[in-house]
Every structure is written in structure tokens, then in C-alpha cells.
């Protein structure tokens, strides 16, 4: 028996992560925890190291130092596909979709870790493989419906509007039934109406019991939906707390509104 999720004080633990790019200290000894079932946002000005931090959690970059734990599994040193195998799934700021494939096929990719059929089972169309395919298609239908993609399911992703492409990215990550979702600037490029819809959806995803870590530029979105916020500046964590505390934090205000010493 594994321990039920809620006995973990924190689902994701980030401990003293460091990353250098040449002489640039992109992420400087950043530590924080993400408790299960909450929305946590990482904010900061351009170049603060948010995306670098994300890429280290998801296995795309190897940290110069420090560790990331998910539950009590060490994620640091794993390949991105192995991180996904543990239940941590991400979306991309610059959408990464297969434009020539249908919406359905793009989203079904999210079910990859839920299946087992390999090359041989696929080539021989073994019963196991066909059953898995059917189950996967059934599993993603509610997600398609929820994101209003059902009618577009056979459309090539390249023919979709930007907003719908963003929705496909989200749907793909959700199809994996993730314990933890990493959203990299999910509102980038969306209009106000779409951003509001997204805010609603992210909160609904949390209410389903999933944990969300997001990097975002849109301040009002972050303040509206986040349970906790971490602020980065020049690679360092300068503040952490509830949205209200962050809004009142003098250093954060100075960074965002520009200080006298600038």
C-alpha cells in the first residue's frame, strides 16, 4: 500500500535548485514546496528564471545543483519522459503540437503512459493493443467535451484557432490523468474572454484534486486563481505567500512598479 496523497505535506519539493548559463546565474538556490491540491504560481519579471526552473523540474535541463522531489521520488536526473511516467505533466508556452495530426490524435498522445502495448502488439494488432486504443478514446471524450473540442476532434490541429490550440495542449496533459500539472504561461496569446475561461478551467482542474504549478505573466489571472505565489527576480526567490501577502510585499511592488534605485 502506498500512502494516500493527503498524508504528504508537500507533493513537490524544490530544494536549492541552481542553474548557470555561462556566467549567468539563471536560477540561484531556489527552494519551495507545493502542497497537494493547490494552485501555486511562479511569477517574476522577464529573465527571472521561471521557465528555467520549470525545465529543471520537468527534466529538460539538468540542474547545476539542488534537487526536486515528487512525493518522495527524486525527479532530478530523470529524463523528461521518466518525469511524465511519475505523473508530472507539462504544457508549453510555445505550443508543441503535431499540426498535421487530428485534435483527437494529439490528445490521445496524453494517454501514452496509461497504455502498455508496444511495437509488436501494435504491428500485430493484438487484442490488448486494440482494447487499449478503445479505452483511451473513451477516456478522453469527457475532456474533449469539457473543453468544447468535441466537434473539432477530427480537424487537423494546424487548422485550429490559437485559443483552441491552447485548449488542445491542456487537454493532452489532462488526458494523462496527471497528479501534478505544470502549466507554462497558459494564458500567453489569449484574449480577455479566453483568459477568464482559462481561469475558470484551471480552478476546476484543481477542484478535481489535481495539483497545479504555473508560470504566468498575467498578474490578474495569477492573483485571481492562485492559492500560493512564489516570486523570482534575477534567479532568486524574493517572496512566497498568499496572493494578498504578495500584493502587499514591498519588494515585489518595487520590482513590478520600478524602484527609485533603478
Amino acid at each position, binding site marked *: 500500500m502506498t500512502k494516500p496523497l493527503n498524508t504528504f505535506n508537500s507533493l513537490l519539493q524544490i530544494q536549492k535548485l541552481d542553474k548557470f548559463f555561462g556566467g549567468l546565474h539563471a536560477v540561484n538556490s531556489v527552494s519551495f514546496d507545493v502542497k497537494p491540491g493547490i494552485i501555486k504560481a511562479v511569477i517574476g519579471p522577464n529573465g527571472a528564471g521561471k521557465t528555467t526552473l520549470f525545465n529543471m523540474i*520537468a527534466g*529538460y535541463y539538468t540542474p547545476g545543483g539542488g534537487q526536486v522531489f515528487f512525493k518522495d521520488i527524486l525527479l532530478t536526473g530523470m*529524463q*523528461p*519522459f521518466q518525469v*511524465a*511516467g511519475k505523473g508530472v*505533466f*507539462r504544457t*508549453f508556452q510555445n505550443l*508543441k*503540437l*503535431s*499540426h*498535421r*495530426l487530428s485534435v483527437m*490524435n*494529439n490528445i*490521445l*498522445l*496524453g*494517454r*501514452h*503512459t496509461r*497504455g502498455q*502495448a*508496444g*511495437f509488436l*502488439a*501494435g*504491428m*500485430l*494488432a493484438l487484442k490488448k*493493443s486494440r482494447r*487499449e*486504443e478503445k479505452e*483511451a478514446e473513451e477516456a478522453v471524450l469527457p475532456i474533449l467535451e469539457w473543453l468544447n473540442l468535441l466537434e*473539432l476532434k477530427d*480537424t487537423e490541429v494546424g*487548422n*485550429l*484557432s490559437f485559443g*483552441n490550440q491552447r485548449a488542445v495542449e491542456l487537454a*493532452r*496533459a489532462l488526458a*494523462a490523468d496527471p497528479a501534478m500539472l505544470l502549466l507554462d504561461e497558459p494564458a500567453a496569446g489569449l484574449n480577455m474572454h479566453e483568459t477568464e475561461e482559462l481561469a475558470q478551467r484551471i480552478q476546476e482542474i484543481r477542484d478535481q484534486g489535481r495539483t497545479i504549478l504555473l508560470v504566468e505573466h498575467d498578474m490578474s489571472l495569477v492573483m485571481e486563481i492562485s492559492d500560493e505565489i512564489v516570486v523570482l527576480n534575477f534567479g532568486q526567490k524574493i517572496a512566497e505567500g498568499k496572493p494578498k501577502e504578495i500584493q502587499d510585499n514591498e519588494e515585489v511592488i518595487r520590482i513590478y512598479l520600478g524602484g527609485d534605485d533603478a
Partner: protein
Amino acid sequence: MKRYYSVLLLAAVIVIIQVLTLITGKAYLLTQLTMSAYYIVVAVGLCMVMGYAGQISLGQAGFFAIGGYTTAFLTTIDFSGKAETGLYRMLDTPGLLITKETLYGDTIIHLTPWISLLAAVLIAAVTAYALGIPILKLKGHYLAMATMGFGIIIYRIVLGSRIFGEADGISNVPSFPVFPGISVSGDFTSRISNYYIAWLLVILGMLLLINLINSRVGRALRSLHGSEEASDAMGVDTSRYKVIVFVIGAVFAAVAGFFMTHYNGGIGPSEAGVAKSVRYVAIVAVGGMANLWGSLIMGLVLNFLSLRGVFGHFDDAVFGIILVFMMMFIPDGFIHTDVIHDIKEMLRPLSMRKKKLKKKQEVSND
């Protein structure tokens, strides 16, 4: 079941063509159709690697040669007069040796091609695996160059080794008894059965690949073509998948080389040449890249014309020009989706097509 309809159609076309050649008295065309079929097996294998998984290979002729030369070498060893050796007894006891009489009445004892088929597949698979692990980390034209380098190495090996017959290649390769009473060989008397064996192999290959494309693994391969990072993020072990699909392409090429060698009764170094590899890439490109049926149709048309000598002295040049033209103007190929779908679309009343087009535009304007 629906996905197999086009395969049934293919089977019907194969039979119709054979009957037509019989009626019109042009049965000699079956020879080129048979050889085209074997080249198609290489092309559809490459289509999976290049069109679907997005990994270019300019070394398929090398794998074809591995298959062909493995069997040519192994089945031309004459065991007659070596009945006392341990190896002979080891092979003879389970019935792995075939005794034959030559035209001059001599007796030849050779290894059954079933064993060399196994060897050909294994050697090609192991080579592709060992080669694939380091070079599939490369992308785009770097990968193309690395695979081409491999092709050149194989070419130089077969050209420079005495055991592979140097520039002459290996001849007198025995026939391959696939089914009782039916052999893969260039005999005039077995022209029709050989035509069917070759196309049966194409159908078998198509079935395996169609199944693969429509499976979990197939989707992962196509996605890694679209975005490798995204496939990684969704838990696909992309480096492993790339190597395995490369191995599959190599095995297809090796099996084709094996059959072709028994059909022709020999193999020469030109089959391993880079010009041949370019052909396969050109066929997949002109067939629409991620399109098995396109590769099959273009593989049939171009190889058939080439083997009939239509391109004359410019044979290799034609394929080169096709490749240059495709890369410059239509890198995604002529045929975009399923051919059957295209034909259906063409046959639909114009009014219905307009309606669909309008709907598509609305979607993209959304």
C-alpha cells in the same frame, strides 16, 4: 476492419494486373512487377521511419545489401564433400541442408535459406540498433549524412571483399523454397507464383505497418515527428522509439534484399550504392512522406518504369531530380492524406465539397 479495405483493394488490383498480362500476352512484365514489389517493401519501411517518425535515412540500400549478401554468402557455401565435418552433421541432423543437382550433374549441398533469412534479419536488426543509438541523436541533414556514411561503408565493404565477390557480386544463389513446391527463383516457369509471393510480402508489410500506425506506438512516432519535446513531456521514450523504428525500417529493407537476391539468383554491389538509397528517399518523398499508400504507388510506378528502361541512361538522375524538385517545391509530397480519401473526395458532388471547404475556412477563422 475498415482500415483493411484498402489492402483488400490492393489484393484485387494485384490479381487483375496478373490476369491482364496473361490475356494480353505480356506475362514478361511480371518480372519487373515482381522486382518493383521488393523495392516497395524497402520504400514502405522507409516511409515509416522517414514519413511517420520523421527520421531520414540515406542508408536503406545498405540494409538491403546486408539482407541480400548475407543470404548470398551463406547459401552458396557448398557442403558436398564435407560430410565428415562436425558442422555438416550439426546442420544436417535437423534437416537444414538442401541437396541439389547442377546443370552439369554435380551435386551441391547448401544451407536452407530459412536459416539465412533468420541471419539476414538478425544482422540487419543488430546493425541498425548499434548504429541507431549514436546517430539517431542527430537531426535533419546531420542524420542524413550519418546514414549516408553508413551506406557508403557497406558499399565499400561488399565492393572490396573477396568473399562478397568484389565488383562481380555473388551469383548462383539457389532458389528459396517458401512453400512446398513453390520457390523464389527467376525460373520462367515460376514467374506467376513469384509475382504473387512478392506481392504477398508487400501486403504482409503493409498490414504490419498499417496496424502500427493505428496503435499507441504509432501515434507516439507520429507525434515525435510533430514535436519531440511534446512527446517527451507525454512520457514517450523518444530515443528508444526512434531506434526501434529505425530497426523496423532496416529489417524491411533486409527482407526485401533477401528475397530479391533469391529471385535474381545473385546480388551485386550496385544494390548497395548510395544512388539506390537516394531512390528510396525520393519514392517516399514523392509519395507524400507520411503516406504508406503514396510510397507504394510511387514505388510501383517509378521502379517499374526504371526497370523497363524508360529512363535510359538517366536512370539515377531521374530519381535525383525528383528528390531535388520535391524538396524545393512540395516537401510534404503530392498526396497529402489517404489516397482512397482523396479519390472519394474527388468523386463527391461539387456542391458538397464547397460546403466542406467553407466549414474548414470557418474553423480556421475562428
